[in-house]
Protein backbone atom coordinates (compact mmCIF):
# COMPACT_ATOMS: atom_id res chain seq x y z
CA UNK A 1 0.00 0.00 0.00
CA UNK A 2 2.69 2.42 1.04
CA UNK A 3 4.73 1.32 -1.93
CA UNK A 4 1.84 2.23 -4.21
CA UNK A 5 1.55 5.64 -2.61
CA UNK A 6 5.22 6.14 -3.23
CA UNK A 7 4.74 5.33 -6.89
CA UNK A 8 1.98 7.91 -7.05
CA UNK A 9 4.10 10.49 -5.33
CA UNK A 10 7.16 9.95 -7.52
CA UNK A 11 5.11 9.90 -10.70
CA UNK A 12 3.41 13.07 -9.52
CA UNK A 13 6.69 14.84 -8.89
CA UNK A 14 8.35 13.78 -12.11
CA UNK A 15 5.33 14.50 -14.26
CA UNK A 16 4.91 17.90 -12.63
CA UNK A 17 8.51 18.68 -13.51
CA UNK A 18 7.95 17.72 -17.11
CA UNK A 19 4.61 19.46 -17.51
CA UNK A 20 5.79 22.71 -16.00
CA UNK A 21 8.19 23.26 -18.87
CA UNK A 22 6.00 21.87 -21.58
CA UNK A 23 4.91 24.78 -23.76
CA UNK A 24 1.82 22.99 -24.90
CA UNK A 25 0.64 22.62 -21.34
CA UNK A 26 1.62 26.16 -20.47
CA UNK A 27 -0.59 27.34 -23.28
CA UNK A 28 -3.50 25.15 -22.28
CA UNK A 29 -3.30 25.81 -18.58
CA UNK A 30 -2.19 29.42 -18.42
CA UNK A 31 -2.58 31.33 -21.67
CA UNK A 32 -5.77 29.95 -23.07
CA UNK A 33 -7.75 30.30 -19.81
CA UNK A 34 -6.41 33.85 -19.40
CA UNK A 35 -7.50 34.81 -22.89
CA UNK A 36 -10.88 33.21 -22.31
CA UNK A 37 -11.09 35.14 -19.06
CA UNK A 38 -10.35 38.40 -20.85
CA UNK A 39 -13.04 37.71 -23.39
CA UNK A 40 -15.53 36.71 -20.75
CA UNK A 41 -14.82 39.77 -18.62
CA UNK A 42 -15.54 42.08 -21.53
CA UNK A 43 -18.48 40.12 -22.82
CA UNK A 44 -20.14 39.87 -19.43
CA UNK A 45 -19.52 43.51 -18.58
CA UNK A 46 -23.20 44.27 -18.69
CA UNK A 47 -24.15 41.60 -16.21
CA UNK A 48 -23.97 41.66 -12.44
CA UNK A 49 -20.98 42.66 -10.42
CA UNK A 50 -20.01 39.26 -9.11
CA UNK A 51 -18.86 38.31 -12.60
CA UNK A 52 -15.31 38.81 -11.42
CA UNK A 53 -15.23 35.64 -9.40
CA UNK A 54 -17.57 33.98 -11.87
CA UNK A 55 -15.06 34.44 -14.66
CA UNK A 56 -12.16 33.36 -12.47
CA UNK A 57 -13.88 30.12 -11.54
CA UNK A 58 -15.21 29.52 -15.04
CA UNK A 59 -11.96 30.12 -16.86
CA UNK A 60 -10.14 28.08 -14.24
CA UNK A 61 -12.47 25.20 -14.98
CA UNK A 62 -11.70 25.49 -18.68
CA UNK A 63 -8.01 25.21 -17.89
CA UNK A 64 -8.66 22.21 -15.70
CA UNK A 65 -10.61 20.41 -18.35
CA UNK A 66 -8.22 21.19 -21.19
CA UNK A 67 -5.34 19.90 -19.11
CA UNK A 68 -7.20 16.78 -18.03
CA UNK A 69 -8.31 16.04 -21.56
CA UNK A 70 -5.10 16.59 -23.45
CA UNK A 71 -2.83 15.18 -20.82
CA UNK A 72 -5.16 12.32 -20.07
CA UNK A 73 -5.33 11.32 -23.68
CA UNK A 74 -1.60 10.87 -23.75
CA UNK A 75 -0.76 9.53 -20.32
CA UNK A 76 -0.63 5.99 -21.52
CA UNK A 77 -0.05 6.59 -25.21
CA UNK A 78 3.01 8.72 -24.62
CA UNK A 79 4.59 5.95 -22.55
CA UNK A 80 3.85 3.61 -25.39
CA UNK A 81 5.61 5.78 -27.94
CA UNK A 82 8.57 6.28 -25.66
CA UNK A 83 8.89 2.56 -25.14
CA UNK A 84 8.54 2.87 -21.38
CA UNK A 85 5.13 1.26 -21.07
CA UNK A 86 6.66 -2.21 -21.00
CA UNK A 87 8.82 -1.21 -18.09
CA UNK A 88 5.73 -0.21 -16.15
CA UNK A 89 3.58 -3.20 -17.06
CA UNK A 90 6.32 -5.68 -16.18
CA UNK A 91 6.97 -4.00 -12.86
CA UNK A 92 5.17 -4.92 -9.63
CA UNK A 93 3.30 -1.61 -9.84
CA UNK A 94 -0.09 -1.31 -11.45
CA UNK A 95 -0.45 0.91 -14.49
CA UNK A 96 -3.28 2.69 -12.76
CA UNK A 97 -1.05 4.03 -9.98
CA UNK A 98 1.16 5.71 -12.55
CA UNK A 99 -1.88 7.27 -14.21
CA UNK A 100 -3.16 8.51 -10.87
CA UNK A 101 0.14 10.25 -10.20
CA UNK A 102 0.15 11.91 -13.60
CA UNK A 103 -3.45 13.01 -13.33
CA UNK A 104 -2.76 14.49 -9.93
CA UNK A 105 0.04 16.50 -11.51
CA UNK A 106 -2.32 17.78 -14.21
CA UNK A 107 -5.00 18.75 -11.73
CA UNK A 108 -2.49 20.51 -9.48
CA UNK A 109 -0.98 22.50 -12.31
CA UNK A 110 -4.30 23.53 -13.67
CA UNK A 111 -5.47 24.84 -10.32
CA UNK A 112 -2.73 27.32 -11.14
CA UNK A 113 -4.81 28.62 -13.99
CA UNK A 114 -7.44 29.67 -11.52
CA UNK A 115 -4.78 31.58 -9.63
CA UNK A 116 -3.58 33.34 -12.78
CA UNK A 117 -7.12 34.31 -13.73
CA UNK A 118 -7.55 35.62 -10.22
CA UNK A 119 -4.46 37.76 -10.63
CA UNK A 120 -5.65 39.02 -13.98
CA UNK A 121 -9.09 39.92 -12.72
CA UNK A 122 -7.88 41.68 -9.61
CA UNK A 123 -4.71 43.39 -10.81
CA UNK A 124 -5.50 44.25 -14.41
CA UNK A 125 -9.23 44.65 -14.40
CA UNK A 126 -9.63 45.59 -10.76
CA UNK A 127 -12.80 43.60 -10.34
CA UNK A 128 -14.37 42.79 -6.98
CA UNK A 129 -13.32 39.27 -6.17
CA UNK A 130 -14.68 38.25 -2.83
CA UNK A 131 -15.90 34.72 -2.40
CA UNK A 132 -19.21 34.98 -0.61
CA UNK A 133 -19.15 31.57 1.07
CA UNK A 134 -15.46 30.81 1.44
CA UNK A 135 -15.62 27.68 3.58
CA UNK A 136 -18.00 25.70 1.35
CA UNK A 137 -16.03 27.04 -1.62
CA UNK A 138 -12.73 25.70 -0.39
CA UNK A 139 -14.26 22.42 0.69
CA UNK A 140 -15.78 22.09 -2.77
CA UNK A 141 -12.35 22.56 -4.29
CA UNK A 142 -11.12 19.75 -2.08
CA UNK A 143 -13.90 17.44 -3.17
CA UNK A 144 -13.21 18.37 -6.75
CA UNK A 145 -9.63 17.11 -6.77
CA UNK A 146 -10.29 13.38 -6.28
CA UNK A 147 -13.29 13.59 -8.59
CA UNK A 148 -11.20 14.98 -11.39
CA UNK A 149 -8.52 12.41 -10.75
CA UNK A 150 -11.16 9.74 -11.14
CA UNK A 151 -12.20 11.33 -14.41
CA UNK A 152 -8.62 11.40 -15.62
CA UNK A 153 -8.32 7.78 -14.60
CA UNK A 154 -11.16 7.05 -16.97
CA UNK A 155 -9.89 9.08 -19.90
CA UNK A 156 -6.40 7.61 -20.09
CA UNK A 157 -7.21 3.95 -20.67
CA UNK A 158 -10.14 4.93 -22.87
CA UNK A 159 -7.80 6.79 -25.19
CA UNK A 160 -5.25 4.00 -25.03
CA UNK A 161 -7.71 1.33 -25.99
CA UNK A 162 -8.88 3.25 -28.98
CA UNK A 163 -6.02 5.23 -30.43
CA UNK A 164 -8.19 6.94 -32.99
CA UNK A 165 -10.30 8.29 -30.18
CA UNK A 166 -7.37 10.41 -29.12
CA UNK A 167 -7.73 12.17 -32.46
CA UNK A 168 -11.01 13.50 -31.17
CA UNK A 169 -9.56 15.44 -28.27
CA UNK A 170 -9.68 18.67 -30.22
CA UNK A 171 -13.39 18.27 -30.61
CA UNK A 172 -14.00 17.50 -26.94
CA UNK A 173 -12.69 20.71 -25.43
CA UNK A 174 -15.55 23.14 -25.91
CA UNK A 175 -18.40 20.63 -25.35
CA UNK A 176 -17.32 20.25 -21.74
CA UNK A 177 -17.17 24.01 -21.29
CA UNK A 178 -20.73 24.11 -22.62
CA UNK A 179 -22.23 21.10 -20.85
CA UNK A 180 -20.38 21.89 -17.66
CA UNK A 181 -21.88 25.32 -17.40
CA UNK A 182 -18.45 26.83 -16.82
CA UNK A 183 -19.13 30.31 -18.13
CA UNK A 184 -22.87 30.31 -18.63
CA UNK A 185 -25.68 28.34 -16.99
CA UNK A 186 -26.93 25.21 -18.67
CA UNK A 187 -30.40 26.74 -18.70
CA UNK A 188 -29.39 28.11 -22.07
CA UNK A 189 -29.06 24.62 -23.45
CA UNK A 190 -31.90 22.51 -24.85
CA UNK A 191 -33.52 20.37 -22.18
CA UNK A 192 -32.52 17.07 -23.71
CA UNK A 193 -28.86 17.87 -23.08
CA UNK A 194 -29.26 18.32 -19.34
CA UNK A 195 -28.93 14.61 -18.46
CA UNK A 196 -25.57 14.71 -20.23
CA UNK A 197 -24.49 17.52 -17.96
CA UNK A 198 -25.67 15.66 -14.88
CA UNK A 199 -23.36 12.70 -15.49
CA UNK A 200 -20.34 14.91 -15.89
CA UNK A 201 -18.53 15.61 -12.66
CA UNK A 202 -17.14 18.95 -13.91
CA UNK A 203 -20.70 20.24 -14.18
CA UNK A 204 -21.32 19.63 -10.48
CA UNK A 205 -17.97 21.13 -9.62
CA UNK A 206 -18.68 24.29 -11.60
CA UNK A 207 -22.18 24.45 -10.19
CA UNK A 208 -21.14 24.37 -6.57
CA UNK A 209 -18.13 26.63 -7.06
CA UNK A 210 -20.22 29.25 -8.85
CA UNK A 211 -22.97 29.03 -6.26
CA UNK A 212 -20.70 29.29 -3.24
CA UNK A 213 -18.60 32.09 -4.71
CA UNK A 214 -21.59 34.23 -5.53
CA UNK A 215 -23.28 33.43 -2.26
CA UNK A 216 -26.49 31.80 -3.45
CA UNK A 217 -25.70 28.26 -2.37
CA UNK A 218 -27.93 26.55 0.16
CA UNK A 219 -26.61 23.63 2.27
CA UNK A 220 -28.85 21.30 0.29
CA UNK A 221 -27.35 22.51 -3.00
CA UNK A 222 -23.84 22.09 -1.74
CA UNK A 223 -24.40 18.63 -0.34
CA UNK A 224 -26.16 17.53 -3.52
CA UNK A 225 -23.24 18.69 -5.64
CA UNK A 226 -20.69 17.01 -3.40
CA UNK A 227 -22.70 13.80 -3.35
CA UNK A 228 -22.98 13.79 -7.13
CA UNK A 229 -19.27 14.44 -7.55
CA UNK A 230 -18.36 11.59 -5.23
CA UNK A 231 -20.89 9.23 -6.75
CA UNK A 232 -19.74 9.98 -10.25
CA UNK A 233 -16.16 9.65 -9.09
CA UNK A 234 -16.88 6.14 -7.89
CA UNK A 235 -18.59 5.27 -11.15
CA UNK A 236 -15.63 6.61 -13.12
CA UNK A 237 -13.24 4.54 -11.04
CA UNK A 238 -15.32 1.40 -11.56
CA UNK A 239 -15.42 1.99 -15.31
CA UNK A 240 -11.72 2.72 -15.44
CA UNK A 241 -10.98 -0.49 -13.53
CA UNK A 242 -12.64 -2.41 -16.35
CA UNK A 243 -10.88 -0.33 -18.96
CA UNK A 244 -7.43 -0.94 -17.50
CA UNK A 245 -8.15 -4.63 -17.65
CA UNK A 246 -9.05 -4.26 -21.31
CA UNK A 247 -5.84 -2.34 -21.99
CA UNK A 248 -3.74 -5.04 -20.38
CA UNK A 249 -5.62 -7.86 -22.00
CA UNK A 250 -5.22 -6.34 -25.42
CA UNK A 251 -1.56 -5.83 -24.76
CA UNK A 252 -0.71 -9.19 -23.29
CA UNK A 253 -3.22 -11.59 -24.73
CA UNK A 254 -4.36 -10.29 -28.06
CA UNK A 255 -1.15 -8.42 -28.63
CA UNK A 256 -3.22 -5.92 -30.60
CA UNK A 257 -2.20 -3.08 -28.37
CA UNK A 258 1.49 -2.83 -28.73
CA UNK A 259 3.19 -1.90 -25.55
CA UNK A 260 5.80 -0.33 -27.76
Amino acid at each position, binding site marked *: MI*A*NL*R*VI*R*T*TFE*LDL*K*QQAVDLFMIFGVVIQPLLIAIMAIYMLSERDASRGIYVVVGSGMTGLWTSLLFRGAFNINAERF*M*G*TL*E*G*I*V*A*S*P*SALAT*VVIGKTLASVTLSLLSMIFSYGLASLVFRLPLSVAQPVPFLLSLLVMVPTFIAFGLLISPLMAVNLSLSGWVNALEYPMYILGGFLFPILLLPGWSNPLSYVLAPYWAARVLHATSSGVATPADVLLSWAMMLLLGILYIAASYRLFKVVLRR*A*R*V*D*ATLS*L*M
Partner: protein
Amino acid sequence: MNAIEVRDLRRVFRATIGTIRRRTKEVVAVDGISFDVRDGELFGLLGPNGAGKTTTVKMLTTLLIPTGGTATILGHDVVQGAGSIRPRIGFIFGGERGLYWRLSAKDNLRYFADLYHMDPDIAKRRLPELLELVGLTGREDEKVEGYSRGMRQRLHVARCLLHDPQVLFLDEPTMGLDPVGARELRQVIQNMVSQDKTVFLTTHYMFEADALCERVAVINHGQIVALDSPEGLKGHVEDLSVIEVEVFGIAPAMVDALRQMADVDTVSVEDRDQKQSLRIHSPLGSAIVPQIMQRLDGNGARVGRVTVREPTLEDAYVRLVGGEV
Protein backbone atom coordinates in the same frame (compact mmCIF):
# COMPACT_ATOMS: atom_id res chain seq x y z
CA MET B 1 16.77 -26.21 -9.12
CA ASN B 2 15.59 -24.72 -12.33
CA ALA B 3 15.18 -20.99 -12.48
CA ILE B 4 13.25 -21.18 -15.74
CA GLU B 5 11.18 -24.06 -17.03
CA VAL B 6 9.53 -23.90 -20.42
CA ARG B 7 7.23 -26.60 -21.82
CA ASP B 8 5.77 -26.48 -25.31
CA LEU B 9 5.54 -22.73 -25.23
CA ARG B 10 3.55 -21.30 -28.10
CA ARG B 11 2.63 -17.82 -29.25
CA VAL B 12 0.41 -17.09 -32.20
CA PHE B 13 -0.25 -13.59 -33.45
CA ARG B 14 -3.46 -12.82 -35.25
CA ALA B 15 -3.52 -9.80 -37.49
CA THR B 16 -6.37 -8.46 -39.52
CA ILE B 17 -5.37 -7.04 -42.84
CA GLY B 18 -7.20 -4.62 -45.02
CA THR B 19 -9.90 -2.14 -44.25
CA ILE B 20 -12.75 -3.24 -46.48
CA ARG B 21 -12.12 -6.91 -47.05
CA ARG B 22 -10.71 -8.07 -43.76
CA ARG B 23 -8.62 -11.18 -43.66
CA THR B 24 -7.08 -12.64 -40.57
CA LYS B 25 -3.52 -13.72 -40.86
CA GLU B 26 -1.99 -15.99 -38.28
CA VAL B 27 1.69 -15.87 -37.56
CA VAL B 28 3.20 -18.51 -35.33
CA ALA B 29 6.07 -16.70 -33.72
CA VAL B 30 6.96 -19.35 -31.16
CA ASP B 31 6.04 -22.90 -32.08
CA GLY B 32 6.18 -25.20 -29.07
CA ILE B 33 9.58 -24.75 -27.48
CA SER B 34 10.83 -26.50 -24.35
CA PHE B 35 13.94 -26.00 -22.26
CA ASP B 36 15.16 -25.53 -18.71
CA VAL B 37 17.58 -23.02 -17.30
CA ARG B 38 19.36 -23.92 -14.07
CA ASP B 39 19.85 -21.54 -11.18
CA GLY B 40 22.89 -19.40 -11.72
CA GLU B 41 23.32 -20.43 -15.34
CA LEU B 42 24.13 -18.11 -18.21
CA PHE B 43 21.87 -19.41 -20.92
CA GLY B 44 21.79 -18.17 -24.49
CA LEU B 45 19.03 -18.13 -27.05
CA LEU B 46 20.59 -17.69 -30.44
CA GLY B 47 18.81 -17.16 -33.70
CA PRO B 48 18.41 -14.94 -36.73
CA ASN B 49 16.07 -11.95 -36.77
CA GLY B 50 12.44 -12.95 -36.62
CA ALA B 51 13.22 -16.36 -35.14
CA GLY B 52 11.07 -15.78 -32.08
CA LYS B 53 13.68 -14.72 -29.55
CA THR B 54 12.09 -11.46 -28.46
CA THR B 55 8.63 -13.03 -28.33
CA THR B 56 9.99 -15.75 -26.06
CA VAL B 57 11.55 -13.21 -23.75
CA LYS B 58 8.37 -11.19 -23.63
CA MET B 59 6.44 -14.25 -22.55
CA LEU B 60 8.97 -15.07 -19.87
CA THR B 61 8.92 -11.50 -18.55
CA THR B 62 5.10 -11.52 -18.27
CA LEU B 63 4.60 -8.98 -21.03
CA LEU B 64 2.89 -11.44 -23.31
CA ILE B 65 0.61 -14.28 -22.39
CA PRO B 66 1.40 -17.56 -24.15
CA THR B 67 -1.14 -19.00 -26.55
CA GLY B 68 -0.14 -22.49 -25.54
CA GLY B 69 2.21 -24.38 -23.28
CA THR B 70 3.56 -23.29 -19.91
CA ALA B 71 6.52 -21.48 -18.46
CA THR B 72 7.59 -21.04 -14.87
CA ILE B 73 10.12 -18.64 -13.42
CA LEU B 74 11.46 -19.54 -10.00
CA GLY B 75 8.56 -21.94 -9.63
CA HIS B 76 5.84 -19.41 -10.46
CA ASP B 77 3.72 -19.66 -13.56
CA VAL B 78 4.13 -16.73 -15.94
CA VAL B 79 0.39 -16.26 -16.21
CA GLN B 80 -0.97 -17.09 -12.77
CA GLY B 81 2.06 -16.05 -10.80
CA ALA B 82 3.02 -12.90 -12.66
CA GLY B 83 2.72 -10.90 -9.46
CA SER B 84 5.34 -13.06 -7.76
CA ILE B 85 7.65 -13.08 -10.73
CA ARG B 86 7.82 -9.38 -11.46
CA PRO B 87 9.74 -8.23 -8.39
CA ARG B 88 12.30 -10.99 -8.92
CA ILE B 89 13.26 -10.43 -12.50
CA GLY B 90 14.96 -7.69 -14.45
CA PHE B 91 15.15 -7.21 -18.19
CA ILE B 92 16.72 -5.18 -20.94
CA PHE B 93 15.35 -4.93 -24.45
CA GLY B 94 18.01 -3.70 -26.79
CA GLY B 95 17.48 -0.31 -28.29
CA GLU B 96 17.10 3.36 -27.60
CA ARG B 97 13.77 3.32 -25.91
CA GLY B 98 12.55 2.44 -22.46
CA LEU B 99 13.98 5.44 -20.66
CA TYR B 100 12.55 8.87 -19.94
CA TRP B 101 14.58 11.23 -22.08
CA ARG B 102 13.47 14.39 -20.36
CA LEU B 103 14.56 13.12 -16.99
CA SER B 104 18.06 12.70 -15.62
CA ALA B 105 19.59 9.28 -15.13
CA LYS B 106 19.16 9.66 -11.40
CA ASP B 107 15.48 10.51 -11.73
CA ASN B 108 14.98 7.60 -14.09
CA LEU B 109 16.47 5.22 -11.54
CA ARG B 110 14.55 6.79 -8.67
CA TYR B 111 11.39 6.26 -10.61
CA PHE B 112 12.10 2.63 -11.39
CA ALA B 113 13.09 2.03 -7.79
CA ASP B 114 9.64 3.18 -6.74
CA LEU B 115 7.94 1.23 -9.49
CA TYR B 116 9.64 -1.85 -8.09
CA HIS B 117 8.44 -1.03 -4.58
CA MET B 118 11.97 -0.78 -3.28
CA ASP B 119 12.54 0.36 0.26
CA PRO B 120 13.64 4.00 -0.09
CA ASP B 121 16.65 3.53 2.17
CA ILE B 122 17.87 0.57 0.20
CA ALA B 123 17.25 2.43 -3.04
CA LYS B 124 19.23 5.41 -1.79
CA ARG B 125 22.17 3.15 -1.12
CA ARG B 126 22.04 1.15 -4.27
CA LEU B 127 21.62 4.00 -6.70
CA PRO B 128 25.18 5.36 -6.43
CA GLU B 129 26.54 1.80 -6.27
CA LEU B 130 24.94 0.94 -9.56
CA LEU B 131 25.91 4.18 -11.22
CA GLU B 132 29.47 3.35 -10.21
CA LEU B 133 29.13 -0.16 -11.59
CA VAL B 134 28.08 1.00 -15.01
CA GLY B 135 30.44 3.94 -15.07
CA LEU B 136 27.91 6.74 -15.05
CA THR B 137 28.97 8.40 -11.81
CA GLY B 138 29.25 12.14 -12.29
CA ARG B 139 26.79 12.19 -15.15
CA GLU B 140 23.69 11.09 -13.31
CA ASP B 141 22.13 14.55 -13.23
CA GLU B 142 22.23 15.01 -16.97
CA LYS B 143 19.13 14.36 -19.01
CA VAL B 144 19.09 11.07 -20.83
CA GLU B 145 18.36 12.83 -24.10
CA GLY B 146 21.96 14.00 -24.08
CA TYR B 147 23.37 10.54 -23.55
CA SER B 148 25.15 8.52 -26.16
CA ARG B 149 23.81 5.15 -27.23
CA GLY B 150 26.35 3.36 -25.08
CA MET B 151 25.53 5.43 -22.02
CA ARG B 152 21.84 4.72 -22.40
CA GLN B 153 22.53 1.03 -22.62
CA ARG B 154 24.58 1.24 -19.46
CA LEU B 155 21.77 3.05 -17.73
CA HIS B 156 19.50 0.20 -18.81
CA VAL B 157 21.87 -2.20 -17.09
CA ALA B 158 21.77 -0.14 -13.92
CA ARG B 159 17.98 -0.05 -14.10
CA CYS B 160 17.58 -3.78 -14.48
CA LEU B 161 19.92 -4.55 -11.59
CA LEU B 162 18.49 -1.95 -9.26
CA HIS B 163 16.10 -4.16 -7.35
CA ASP B 164 18.61 -7.01 -7.18
CA PRO B 165 16.59 -9.48 -9.21
CA GLN B 166 17.39 -13.15 -9.26
CA VAL B 167 16.79 -13.74 -12.92
CA LEU B 168 17.86 -11.39 -15.69
CA PHE B 169 16.60 -11.33 -19.25
CA LEU B 170 18.85 -9.55 -21.71
CA ASP B 171 17.44 -9.23 -25.18
CA GLU B 172 20.21 -8.42 -27.65
CA PRO B 173 21.90 -6.15 -25.12
CA THR B 174 25.01 -5.33 -27.13
CA MET B 175 23.19 -4.50 -30.33
CA GLY B 176 24.18 -1.11 -31.65
CA LEU B 177 27.05 -0.67 -29.25
CA ASP B 178 30.58 0.08 -30.34
CA PRO B 179 33.06 -2.75 -29.80
CA VAL B 180 34.49 -1.24 -26.62
CA GLY B 181 31.08 -0.68 -25.12
CA ALA B 182 29.98 -4.15 -26.10
CA ARG B 183 33.00 -5.71 -24.48
CA GLU B 184 32.43 -3.80 -21.27
CA LEU B 185 28.83 -4.90 -21.22
CA ARG B 186 29.83 -8.52 -21.65
CA GLN B 187 32.10 -8.13 -18.68
CA VAL B 188 29.20 -6.83 -16.64
CA ILE B 189 27.09 -9.77 -17.72
CA GLN B 190 29.73 -12.21 -16.58
CA ASN B 191 29.86 -10.44 -13.23
CA MET B 192 26.14 -10.94 -12.83
CA VAL B 193 26.55 -14.66 -13.07
CA SER B 194 29.32 -14.68 -10.55
CA GLN B 195 26.77 -13.20 -8.15
CA ASP B 196 24.61 -16.28 -8.51
CA LYS B 197 22.12 -14.61 -10.76
CA THR B 198 20.54 -16.52 -13.60
CA VAL B 199 21.00 -14.79 -16.94
CA PHE B 200 18.93 -15.50 -20.00
CA LEU B 201 20.55 -13.86 -22.99
CA THR B 202 19.29 -13.58 -26.53
CA THR B 203 21.59 -12.62 -29.31
CA HIS B 204 22.30 -13.13 -32.96
CA TYR B 205 26.03 -12.70 -32.47
CA MET B 206 27.47 -16.16 -32.43
CA PHE B 207 30.77 -15.21 -30.91
CA GLU B 208 28.93 -13.58 -28.06
CA ALA B 209 27.01 -16.77 -27.30
CA ASP B 210 30.20 -18.73 -27.61
CA ALA B 211 32.11 -16.44 -25.27
CA LEU B 212 29.48 -16.01 -22.58
CA CYS B 213 27.04 -18.87 -22.44
CA GLU B 214 27.24 -22.17 -20.69
CA ARG B 215 24.51 -23.55 -22.87
CA VAL B 216 22.94 -22.24 -26.05
CA ALA B 217 19.57 -22.97 -27.61
CA VAL B 218 19.42 -22.26 -31.32
CA ILE B 219 16.02 -21.07 -32.45
CA ASN B 220 14.73 -20.62 -35.96
CA HIS B 221 11.18 -20.08 -37.23
CA GLY B 222 9.88 -20.36 -33.68
CA GLN B 223 11.41 -23.75 -33.01
CA ILE B 224 14.48 -24.86 -31.14
CA VAL B 225 16.73 -26.67 -33.57
CA ALA B 226 19.53 -27.42 -31.12
CA LEU B 227 20.33 -27.09 -27.45
CA ASP B 228 23.80 -27.78 -26.15
CA SER B 229 26.94 -26.22 -24.76
CA PRO B 230 28.92 -24.25 -27.33
CA GLU B 231 31.37 -27.14 -27.57
CA GLY B 232 28.57 -29.56 -28.11
CA LEU B 233 27.10 -27.41 -30.84
CA LYS B 234 30.41 -27.27 -32.63
CA GLY B 235 30.20 -31.04 -32.67
CA HIS B 236 27.33 -30.62 -35.10
CA VAL B 237 29.77 -29.47 -37.66
CA GLU B 238 32.75 -31.61 -36.73
CA ASP B 239 32.45 -33.47 -39.94
CA LEU B 240 32.57 -30.31 -41.98
CA SER B 241 35.36 -28.04 -43.06
CA VAL B 242 34.77 -24.48 -43.94
CA ILE B 243 36.03 -22.99 -47.14
CA GLU B 244 35.99 -19.23 -47.12
CA VAL B 245 36.15 -17.56 -50.51
CA GLU B 246 36.40 -13.85 -51.03
CA VAL B 247 34.53 -12.75 -54.14
CA PHE B 248 33.83 -9.41 -55.76
CA GLY B 249 30.26 -9.13 -56.90
CA ILE B 250 28.70 -12.53 -57.08
CA ALA B 251 25.22 -13.11 -58.48
CA PRO B 252 22.64 -14.91 -56.32
CA ALA B 253 22.16 -17.44 -59.10
CA MET B 254 25.82 -18.36 -58.80
CA VAL B 255 25.45 -18.87 -55.04
CA ASP B 256 22.49 -21.17 -55.63
CA ALA B 257 24.49 -23.11 -58.20
CA LEU B 258 27.19 -23.64 -55.58
CA ARG B 259 24.59 -24.87 -53.15
CA GLN B 260 23.42 -27.45 -55.66
CA MET B 261 26.88 -28.93 -55.94
CA ALA B 262 27.41 -32.42 -54.61
CA ASP B 263 29.25 -32.53 -51.29
CA VAL B 264 28.37 -28.96 -50.46
CA ASP B 265 26.39 -28.76 -47.27
CA THR B 266 25.54 -25.08 -46.95
CA VAL B 267 26.70 -21.84 -48.50
CA SER B 268 26.25 -18.54 -46.74
CA VAL B 269 27.14 -15.11 -48.05
CA GLU B 270 28.33 -12.20 -45.99
CA ASP B 271 28.56 -8.75 -47.49
CA ARG B 272 31.59 -6.73 -46.53
CA ASP B 273 31.77 -3.38 -48.28
CA GLN B 274 32.83 -4.04 -51.85
CA LYS B 275 33.31 -7.74 -51.53
CA GLN B 276 31.44 -10.73 -50.31
CA SER B 277 32.66 -13.58 -48.20
CA LEU B 278 31.34 -16.98 -49.18
CA ARG B 279 31.33 -19.58 -46.50
CA ILE B 280 31.05 -23.05 -47.90
CA HIS B 281 30.60 -26.08 -45.67
CA SER B 282 31.76 -29.32 -47.09
CA PRO B 283 32.99 -32.62 -45.67
CA LEU B 284 35.61 -32.73 -48.41
CA GLY B 285 37.46 -29.69 -47.14
CA SER B 286 40.29 -28.52 -49.34
CA ALA B 287 39.57 -31.30 -51.83
CA ILE B 288 36.54 -29.48 -53.10
CA VAL B 289 38.33 -26.19 -53.68
CA PRO B 290 39.31 -26.87 -57.33
CA GLN B 291 35.71 -27.61 -58.25
CA ILE B 292 34.53 -24.44 -56.56
CA MET B 293 37.18 -22.39 -58.33
CA GLN B 294 36.20 -23.92 -61.64
CA ARG B 295 32.59 -22.90 -61.10
CA LEU B 296 33.46 -19.40 -60.07
CA ASP B 297 36.10 -18.73 -62.73
CA GLY B 298 33.94 -20.24 -65.41
CA ASN B 299 31.28 -17.65 -64.66
CA GLY B 300 33.58 -14.70 -64.57
CA ALA B 301 33.43 -14.07 -60.85
CA ARG B 302 36.50 -12.33 -59.50
CA VAL B 303 38.00 -14.32 -56.68
CA GLY B 304 40.23 -13.06 -53.89
CA ARG B 305 41.49 -14.97 -50.92
CA VAL B 306 40.60 -18.59 -50.28
CA THR B 307 41.05 -20.24 -46.88
CA VAL B 308 40.13 -23.62 -45.50
CA ARG B 309 39.58 -23.91 -41.79
CA GLU B 310 38.00 -25.81 -38.93
CA PRO B 311 34.40 -24.98 -38.09
CA THR B 312 33.49 -22.59 -35.28
CA LEU B 313 30.26 -22.15 -33.36
CA GLU B 314 29.25 -19.68 -35.99
CA ASP B 315 29.46 -22.35 -38.63
CA ALA B 316 27.42 -24.70 -36.49
CA TYR B 317 24.86 -21.99 -36.19
CA VAL B 318 24.78 -21.32 -39.89
CA ARG B 319 24.28 -24.98 -40.57
CA LEU B 320 21.55 -25.27 -37.96
CA VAL B 321 19.59 -22.37 -39.36
CA GLY B 322 20.06 -23.69 -42.84
CA GLY B 323 22.30 -20.97 -44.12
CA GLU B 324 19.69 -18.25 -43.73
CA VAL B 325 21.68 -16.08 -41.39
